[in-house]
């Protein structure tokens, strides 16, 4: 307002919208404490007590895959990537080819988040320090960057941040912290966080590789 010296368009709608935002956030936080956090927490405890690795890994994978495949932000990014690939001549410039490419990218991304959560849960179980895995991952990303087509790079880097949605994050965080609390010898602060970091990292890798292969 000060810089552009122009009045706000539709002041009424803006004020109403702001009220909606504030009320929405209040409900969301309340719901987090009542619903999402306890569910993630009790599931993590129950799975840890059950002691069945396939069940735990299965849950981690499904949580990652299921929440990512339907993520609206990812659908948008995938469509954008398909347009770029078509313009670059990497794929045929037709509706069907673009759709195929976008779907492939979406499933690749969902798969990678599922795999990431399995690795992340394995790390919590074993108590591996996170920095070696993440830094190792960064180095791999940088190496792949040299071989990936230039146009996919920005999209791949962006997609790491895009895909972790508002409902996934609290659940995944509660799962990690719950697991680290339930397993003896793990510190929830050191071992509980980090699952989301894995998800963003593997996403960048998988999208870069997808851009190279196709």
């Amino acid at each position, binding site marked *: 307002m000060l*810089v*552009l010296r*122009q009045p706000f368009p539709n002041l009424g709608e*803006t004020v*109403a*919208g*702001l009220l*909606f*935002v504030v009320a*929405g956030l209040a*409900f*969301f936080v309340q*719901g*987090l*404490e*009542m*619903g*999402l956090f*306890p*569910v993630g927490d*009790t*599931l993590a405890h129950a*799975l840890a007590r059950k002691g069945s690795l396939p*069940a735990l890994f299965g849950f981690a994978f499904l*949580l990652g895959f*299921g*929440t990512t495949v*339907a993520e609206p932000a990812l659908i948008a990014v995938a469509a*954008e990537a398909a347009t*770029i690939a078509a*313009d670059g001549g990497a794929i045929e410039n037709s509706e069907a080819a673009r759709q195929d490419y976008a779907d492939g990218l979406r499933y690749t991304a969902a798969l990678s988040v599922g795999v990431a959560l399995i690795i992340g849960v394995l790390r919590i179980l074993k108590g591996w*320090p996170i*920095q070696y895995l*993440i*830094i190792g991952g*960064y180095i791999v990303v*940088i190496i792949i*960057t040299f071989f990936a087509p*230039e*146009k996919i*790079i*920005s999209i791949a*880097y*962006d997609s*790491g*941040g*895009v895909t*972790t949605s*508002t409902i*996934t*994050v*609290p659940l995944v*965080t509660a799962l990690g912290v719950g697991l680290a609390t339930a397993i003896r010898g793990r510190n929830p*602060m*050191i071992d509980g*966080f*980090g699952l989301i*970091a894995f*998800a*963003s990292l593997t996403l960048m890798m998988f999208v870069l590789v997808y851009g190279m292969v196709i």
Partner: protein
Amino acid sequence: MDILIGLLTETGKTLVSTIFDVMPIVAIMFGFQFLVIRQRPAHLRKIVIGFVYVVLGLTLFLVGLEQALFPVGKSMAAQLTAPGFLGGGDRVLGWWDYTWVYVFAAAIGFSTTVAEPSLIAVSLKAQEISGGAISAWGLRIAVAIGVAIGVALGAFRIVTGTPLPYYIMVGYAIVIIQTMFTSKWIIPLAYDSGGVTTSTVTVPVVAALGLGLASTTEGRSPLIDGFGLIAFASLFPIISVMGYASLTSWIGRRKRVQEKEESA
């Protein structure tokens, strides 16, 4: 009255799409609860009410954003990047002509991040787990500063047209160096904060800024240069959160040293 009707239909539509977004997660959660664990969760009623609150809250939040913030944010991004405002005309613009764009980018990065629901969730959890050693607000501000710097630098990159991987690699190098020196307990949280910051609020506004900037700046293609702002926004919080931890522990140490000197 028209506004009210518009709001109501918009709310209904958003509610339906939010429910569809939440469905797969709910299916997985309850599937596991009943098939694998075979146990009725305690406080089922409370949990269901909690889920209803989450869906309701997200719906209101998204409608509000759509009504209030996105149009303003997008039109401001378009106006600020318009050559007329930048004082262009005939002469070629240098990167220093874009000062207001950088300021706007930083402000947008900061304010959208403070309002980001996923970040609120993670910082609440961190405060709870750390027994209050990490304050939810401190963490949110630290992350928001990181995003602000990141988006401003990302805007600078689009204006200058320099390659993204160089910036990211330098950023990674800083992260690696910081990792060696910060206390162990903040590292996982810092890494997480990178991916957490950019969701519902930040992505649409920041992406609009990037695409707008790339399409109005001469010699930039929105498809190649327009992306990459989100990457900055997810890298810099890692740096700023570790920086915040180093700063608080340094202040704590200094205080202790001072107290020792005073008592001696």
